[in-house]
């Protein structure tokens, strides 16, 4: 975690994956940002418009350590991400990273066992980098609003078993990822999840029912991104050793937490 750098990054490629879902491949000038990154970490992306002060935290969808590249996939959620979506290949943006802790690969059986990846909406992208890093059997339960899916084929290309849930029922299970997981009796040695809080509450309960550990990646409004401002806290079950209250910092102590560490 000693490799946090603020650096310019060249946009090598931009992509549109679905309505309002965009991606880009970045080559940070400081290669360490990509080389030291692990799945589940994120970068702060700075806007060019100076009226938008705060960086946008965006998770790493893919980490190409050999070529020092990062892929970000994000949803256009406001003016800052809209601005980002208008940047073109060949332009540079300012980023800081890699930030946060990332998913832990420990706790799986020696052969890699069976990992269950559960992603809802824009929570799906960081699970792709994770799926690439996991050595064993992987089941990805992916939740979308409707039939306009994204990244699904890429999970399949990595050899994951892919189960789909859609809010409108146009593909797969009608409902959320928990409904889909139940319908398909999904089980494994560890659940890795990312998505909106209500979904993660469901994941936490599902993992508890199965008696397996779960790692949840949380999202919260941030300012500094490095653990100083205490904007992005979540509630911890035990008194936190840094804050000395029942709060953990999503940007620094997370964004990934074991389900039993936090209250949702």
């Amino acid at each position: 975690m000693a490799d946090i750098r603020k650096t310019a990054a060249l946009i090598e490629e931009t992509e549109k994956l679905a309505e309002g879902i965009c991606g880009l491949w970045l080559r940070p000038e400081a290669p360490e940002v990509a080389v030291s990154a692990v799945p589940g970490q994120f970068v702060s992306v700075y806007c060019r418009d100076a009226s938008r002060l705060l960086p946008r935290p965006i998770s790493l969808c893919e980490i190409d350590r050999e070529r020092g590249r990062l892929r970000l996939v994000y949803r256009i959620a406001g003016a800052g991400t809209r601005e980002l979506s208008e940047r073109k290949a060949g332009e540079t943006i300012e980023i800081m990273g890699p930030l946060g802790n990332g998913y832990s690969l420990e706790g799986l059986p020696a052969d890699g066992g069976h990992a269950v990846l559960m992603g809802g909406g824009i929570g799906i992208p960081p699970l792709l980098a994770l799926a690439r890093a996991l050595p064993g059997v992987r089941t990805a339960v992916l939740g979308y609003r409707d039939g306009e899916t994204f990244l699904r084929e890429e999970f399949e290309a990595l050899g994951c078993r892919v189960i789909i849930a859609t809010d409108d029922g146009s593909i797969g299970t009608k409902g959320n990822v928990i409904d889909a997981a139940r319908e398909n009796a999904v089980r494994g040695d560890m659940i890795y999840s990312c998505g909106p809080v209500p979904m993660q509450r469901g994941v936490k309960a599902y993992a508890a029912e199965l008696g397996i550990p779960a790692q949840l990646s949380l999202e919260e409004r941030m300012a500094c991104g490095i653990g100083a401002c205490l904007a992005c806290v979540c509630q911890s079950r035990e008194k936190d050793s840094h804050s000395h209250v029942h709060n953990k910092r999503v940007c620094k102590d997370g964004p990934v937490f074991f389900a039993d560490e936090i209250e949702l």
Partner: protein
Amino acid sequence: MNTRVSIAGVEFKNPVTTASGTFGSGMEYAELVDLNRLGAVTTKGVAIVPWPGNPTPRVAETHGGMLNAIGLQNPGVDVLLERDIPFLKHYDTRIIVNVCGKTAEDYVAVVEKLADAPVDLLEINISCPNVREGGIAFGQDPRMVESITREIKQHAKQPVIMKLSPNVTDITKTAKAAEAGGADALSLINTLTGMKIDINRRTFLLANKTGGMSGPAVKPVALRMVYQTANAVSIPVIGMGGIATAEDALEFLMAGASMVAVGTANFYNPRATLDVIEGIEKYMESSRVEDIKELIGCVK
């Protein structure tokens, strides 16, 4: 070239510190910023016991600024003394500890705990807009400001800076009250109370409904108040509010601030303090300013 300034007998290598709450206790920023370069580190507000702060969302962006309602989450003064002060003592920089409380007794208890610590100055936060008790309640009434300043001064071993709220009609009244109470210096401005509404969810963006506004958008207001205050009192003023560049800092110095603090800019430019220090040096060099004191209050 001399960039040294002194406040209440404490000398600083340069007039740049951090605004309380934007820099933690320096630990997180130490990876990105050489703390030895700073005139001082001003730590996040600390209370006598740990405070959990407000529910989230605690921050929102506004045009050229931001709102925060952290609610003074802090680990308590014992942790500051055991962990943060020893950490900062590894660096060649001054330490200003920001103190918060809910009652006069709270402030006094913290100040007494800090009495024998290697802390250079105390900054008393009587102006936080995000906690119901204490904070701003003390900071808006000149009589309260005077009496709490006097009480803290009776117990403090280090010089005392009173941090003033801009959420008043006439800041020179609370400034003069603090001076009358015995304050050694003043710092201003704390954040301006503001609000943002999420029109899609039809509710407040911040869980606390209101928050303190900071960032470049508040700079002209802060500058005006620093100028008014510096001309109304005879104790030194530490200026802050939207300072992001050396040019911003120079404006505050010329308006009468003896020292400046960089706050919100740390969030989007972790090197902002260093940029300000280096930019001030460059300005002095190119404008042939031998001593920074020539600039302080030069605009009348």
